[in-house]
């Protein structure tokens, strides 16, 4: 028991572990809260599309010497706009529009990064799979700042966002600006993905959006409970993943995602054994 305690606490004397801890907690909560909305609106695929689309933004921001978070955010929003445009101005179904846009963005991102790599040493893997142990102080400030901002906005607009998610037509008829709220959710999603990319990487961040929220969804009946319990699953997954990354020297993204998936598996099996549908 004491060895376990030391195993958990001792690494925290390193500054890089303290930074990782903060990011892990922030990302765990943030992803579960925003992911709950994506989950109940069947927008998981859109989260995936936006996350893959962050990559060219990162690359271009790097080339121009701009803030990587800003570059990624702009690229994420741009992809959401493009998807919406293709959907509304053609007979294509949403999944096709998303597939086209995110693979194009992702391809462009890979191309630009491999091109940058000819001249500068950057590790593509860190973008793709995350490196929570490598975040610097500015990263931490940005991630915590985004988390507080997004959580504040969700708290502020919770009743409107929830009404719109549940019954968009009823909400529109009642006079809520459902389209603007929908775009607001896209902005929040992009911010969340940007904040999470350093910890989980753009390839796997979808799992943090959906899996903890989905796990909670199996267990509790109200949206705010899904968010709270999902946060618990998300935070514990990112913490355990962080330690796995420290002790086993593996990429943090896959480690975090596997823990989150394990929580889901346990909840799913437990429910099935209890005979619930």
């Amino acid at each position, binding site marked *: 028991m004491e060895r376990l305690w030391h195993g958990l606490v001792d690494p925290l004397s390193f500054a890089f572990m303290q930074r990782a801890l903060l990011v892990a907690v922030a990302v765990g909560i943030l992803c579960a809260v925003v992911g709950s909305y994506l989950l109940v609106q069947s927008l998981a695929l859109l989260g995936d599309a936006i996350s893959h689309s962050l990559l060219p933004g990162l690359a271009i921001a790097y080339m121009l010497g701009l803030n990587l978070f800003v570059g990624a955010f702009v690229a994420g929003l741009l992809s959401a706009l493009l998807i919406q445009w293709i959907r509304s101005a053609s007979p294509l179904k949403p999944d096709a529009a998303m597939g086209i846009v995110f693979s194009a963005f992702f391809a462009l991102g890979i191309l630009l990064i491999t091109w940058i790599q000819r001249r500068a040493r950057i590790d593509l893997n860190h973008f793709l799979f995350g490196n929570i142990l490598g975040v610097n102080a500015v990263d931490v400030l940005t991630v915590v700042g985004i988390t507080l901002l997004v959580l504040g906005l969700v708290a*502020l607009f919770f009743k409107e966002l929830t009404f719109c998610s549940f019954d968009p037509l009823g909400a529109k008829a*009642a*006079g809520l600006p459902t389209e603007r709220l929908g775009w607001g959710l896209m902005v929040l999603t992009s911010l969340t993905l940007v904040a999470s990319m350093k910890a989980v990487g753009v390839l796997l961040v979808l799992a943090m959006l959906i899996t903890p929220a989905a796990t909670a969804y199996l267990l509790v009946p109200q*949206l705010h409970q899904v968010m709270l319990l999902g946060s618990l699953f998300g935070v514990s997954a990112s913490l355990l993943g962080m330690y796995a990354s420290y002790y086993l020297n593996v990429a943090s993204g896959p480690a975090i995602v596997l823990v989150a998936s394990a929580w889901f598996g346990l909840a799913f099996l437990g429910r099935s054994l209890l005979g619930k549908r």
Partner: protein
Amino acid sequence: MKKQSAPLPLRPAGGSLVVRDLTVRYGSLQVLQGIQAEIAPGRITGILGPNGAGKSTFLKGLLGLVPLERGEVRYGGQALRGEQVAYVPQRSAIDWTFPATVWDVVLMGQVKPTGWFRRIGKEGRRRAAQALERVGMGSYRDRPIGRLSGGQQQRVFLARALAQEAEIYALDEPFAGIDQPSEAILFQVMRELADAGHIVMVVHHDLGQALARFDEVLLLNRVLIAQGSPQQVLQPQVLRQAYGQAISLSLAA
């Protein structure tokens, strides 16, 4: 757009909903063409027609939920405002696995009246609770909405509409596949709303006995075929215009 020098009275008494030349097109398909109608307060207005006649689209077009190709809708001489409208969508438009309880859904009726950046207050909760009692669902507050019968779900949505304290109540196929007690409660509440001077519009799917309980019927099939009392509209020659030949047989039975 809507600048007023004097504040509007809370309930514009006796204002009708006036529909002029309402035309809706989905892509190349013209769903509704040139509908002219006046829907009066104080009565239950049924919107009827065969499948694909555009009944639901008519309701959505009225409420601004789908874009109009042409036409306009005026209420008390003005454009409709959201806070005047409570809408109950078709059951199929709702994801019943959504993580919400009965109470969560009824409270949504108070979202718009409460306004931005504010929590739903004591008064709002009281009204929501009252609405839930009114439809006989008070003891189901904490039940997940997915674990109710179809009729109970409709009653919860009617309670949500009541909690909105609107002037215009629009229900899309509320009677589809629901139990007899729920249907009775729905009609009772709609009757009270109409008696209180509200506009009540109901899209209805068949020509069964329930029809007699409407005060006014709009018969649609892409265009407005007829408007009047159920007795006036349900004449064989009128129905044949809307439904074609086949209907006269089933009506006679």
